[in-house]
């Protein structure tokens, strides 16, 4: 909570400072985006040790997003497996993104919201649409409103039109597009940036139809996204190529940078990532050249400038005493008179005809067995 406040204070301070310096030139830029808060949903969908690179991908984007100002309370981090404490990890409590262990993206303050088997298609869609059971804690919810810019990052194994979750289920591009449409209709985002790093990732954004969506993918349909480098000490590939170069790009961004989306689209050309990254901006209402990276990856607060002076030293005049009604105990409604009385439960009884028939039969059989002569005692 305190870290949250400090970070936001920092961001506002920086923004105010910079705005004073370049007041006239960039004020238009400054107010172009209409968001007031930033959220990030970062999902790694694969488990097992050999999918280390997907967890490292997600954690490196998490690190960048946190460094640029989005607090943990506004990040929903979903990791399908625990690589840092996996018993096959030769360097426990670390997840590296560069070989030779240059950068530990796990760090000291990673807050994973959905871990292990909680990362399912159902949970992911529920987080996006907000339809979670009332008992879900706040850290597991995407509490965005219509002024939120959301970054959604997915990584894992995918194919043409689907993304595999946990090795046992899939989410299709149609489901994803429908989830985003639900979010739009419920006014859960202002603008949404969707990044996906899987094989044939471009197929996942083909079906989007809601406004204000921008999408990036690491490979086109028919292409595979490749991993970057294996580390011989850890024994697995550490990162995927696209996210590796994305991380390098993001390391140069700071909260005040003015880099825009067109630079992001140039990250990882075919010479570096053997696949062709793709992007989709037709649903986005603003020109991508005017969208700042920090609009999605950082949490730059908007500040209103005013030239009026505010006097904080005069005593505050009390509001006039309003005539307050004395509160009194309201009489209880005569509920029992209003609603129906519950009908008294009638015990079930077998019908009389049945009892008569049954006992007549029994008596007949008795007399048939033991002779008719007993009947004369009755008649």
């Amino acid at each position, binding site marked *: 909570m305190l870290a949250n406040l400090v970070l936001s204070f920092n961001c506002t301070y920086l923004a105010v400072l910079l705005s004073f310096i370049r007041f006239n030139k960039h004020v238009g830029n400054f107010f172009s985006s209409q968001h007031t808060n930033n959220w990030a949903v970062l999902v790694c969908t694969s488990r097992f040790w050999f999918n280390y690179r997907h967890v490292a991908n997600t954690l490196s984007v998490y690190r960048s997003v946190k460094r640029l100002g989005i607090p943990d309370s506004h990040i929903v981090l979903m990791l399908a497996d625990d690589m840092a404490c996996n018993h096959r990890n030769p360097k426990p409590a670390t997840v590296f993104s560069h070989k030779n262990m240059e950068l530990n993206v796990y760090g000291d303050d990673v807050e994973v919201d959905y871990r292990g088997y909680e990362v399912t298609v159902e949970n992911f869609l529920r987080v996006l649409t907000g339809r979670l059971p009332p008992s879900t804690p706040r850290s597991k919810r995407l509490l965005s409103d219509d002024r939120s810019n959301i970054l959604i990052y997915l990584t894992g194994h995918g194919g043409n039109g689907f993304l595999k979750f946990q090795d046992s289920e899939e989410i299709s591009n149609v489901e994803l597009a429908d989830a985003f449409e639900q979010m739009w209709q419920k006014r859960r985002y202002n603008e949404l940036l969707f990044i996906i790093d899987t094989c044939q990732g471009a197929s996942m954004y083909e079906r989007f139809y809601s406004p204000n969506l921008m999408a990036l993918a690491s490979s086109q349909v028919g292409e595979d996204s490749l991993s970057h480098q294996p580390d011989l000490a850890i024994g697995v590939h550490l990162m995927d190529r696209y996210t590796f170069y994305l991380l390098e790009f993001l390391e140069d961004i700071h909260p005040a940078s003015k880099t825009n989306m067109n630079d992001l689209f140039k990250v990882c050309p075919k010479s570096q990532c053997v696949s062709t990254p793709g992007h989709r901006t037709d649903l986005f209402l603003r020109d991508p050249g005017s969208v700042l990276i920090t609009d999605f990856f950082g949490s730059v607060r908007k500040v209103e400038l005013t030239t009026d002076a505010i006097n904080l030293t005069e005593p505050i005049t009390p509001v006039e005493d309003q005539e307050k009604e004395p509160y009194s105990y309201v009489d209880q409604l005569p509920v029992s008179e209003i609603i129906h009385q519950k009908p008294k*439960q009638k*015990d*079930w009884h077998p019908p009389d005809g049945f009892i008569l028939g049954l006992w007549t039969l029994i008596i007949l*059989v008795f007399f048939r067995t033991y002779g008719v002569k007993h009947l004369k005692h009755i008649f």
Partner: protein
Amino acid sequence: MAAPLTLLLIVAVSIRLFLFRSSLVGLIAERVEVVSPLNAWKRVIEGLALLDLGVSPYSGDVFHETPLIIYLFHFVVDYAEITFMLADAITAVALYLAVKDYNTQVLKKQRLELEADRYPMDCLELVRSPKQMYYIPLKVAMFYLLNPFTILSCVAKSTCGLNNAVLALFFLFTIKKNTLLSAIFLALATYQSIYPITLCAPAMLYVMQRQYIPVNYRWASFWWFVAQYLFMYLGSLSVIVFLSFFLLGSWDYVPSVYGFILSVPDLTPNIGLFWYFFAEMFEHFRLFFLCVFQINIFFYTIPLSIKLKDQPVFLMFMQLAVISIFKSYPTVGDLALYLAFLPVWSHLHRFLRNIFLVTCVLIACSALFPVLWHLWIYAGSANSNFYYAITLLFNVAQILLVSDYFYAFLRREHHLTYGLYLKKKDGSEATLVLK
């Protein structure tokens, strides 16, 4: 013999009372080996509660017992424990009286054959004497009442006890040659679970034997008797079915009871063979295998009755065993009924070959059932295959028991006809093989 029987009844009732008042009742009442979806007490209470709420007790796949059980328990639900103990007592007394009468018949028949010189000289040691057979009825009652399976079934208040009582009364009235009552009780037993219909054949055969009607399709009296018995049986069955319709005013009970027994929708594990098989069955094969499994029970009647037409009581024992093993929802209470008959065939023990193996397997499997259930459901370190393996082994042991007795019975009959020491043509000792 009334005094030992009374003593036995008192001992049995006290064991059951003691267990009823102990803390094991809840544990036993929910064990799947002892109760099945058909005869669980919990479901009877649910059905009665639904009825009190004004809803048909057969709505919602909860209650699968017949309306007459509703009628009975509507009045005695507060005395349920006494009812079940009474049912066990009635079963034991009925079996006792029946076996006593049967022994008299056996001895009479044996004397006739001895006087007619039908037995070869060397098999006189196989002939039974009244002294040997004196304690058999008491042993039968004891085998039923003190069998741990029966006690468990009674303490769990499973309606299997009531079914056993009806079957025992049917047996008693068949032995006493009372056609009408035997038909009525068989109709009641069939009404409760469909399978006792196969006991029609041994009942008819026995009564025909006692009435000296030859079992030959050429004789008119044979057909006349069969028609009479079937008329009484089917008539009482339809009367009971229509009475049940009048009790609740609807036919819901037919799909809930008979549809449930025949189509086996509930695959809760039990000691039978259906659940595992149908859990992994593809939908389009289900009907076929359902028919195969159900026909399996009815299939043995005709061949066995052709072979055993002179010994209908043994046929009844075998048929009861086949029903208990192959029915769709067996419980240990069903086993208890046919195990109670074993003392009647105690003279066959010298010809039994696998009895040690069978006893060990039955005891071991009974002990392993709760262990593997715990490992599967609670500890999670086993799976359904383990439990089904024990179920299979248990059923194989039962089948082996029944076939062993069948072998011993037939072998004794063979010896009584051809002599005890059989010789091959060259004079060396021969062995008999059941082919």
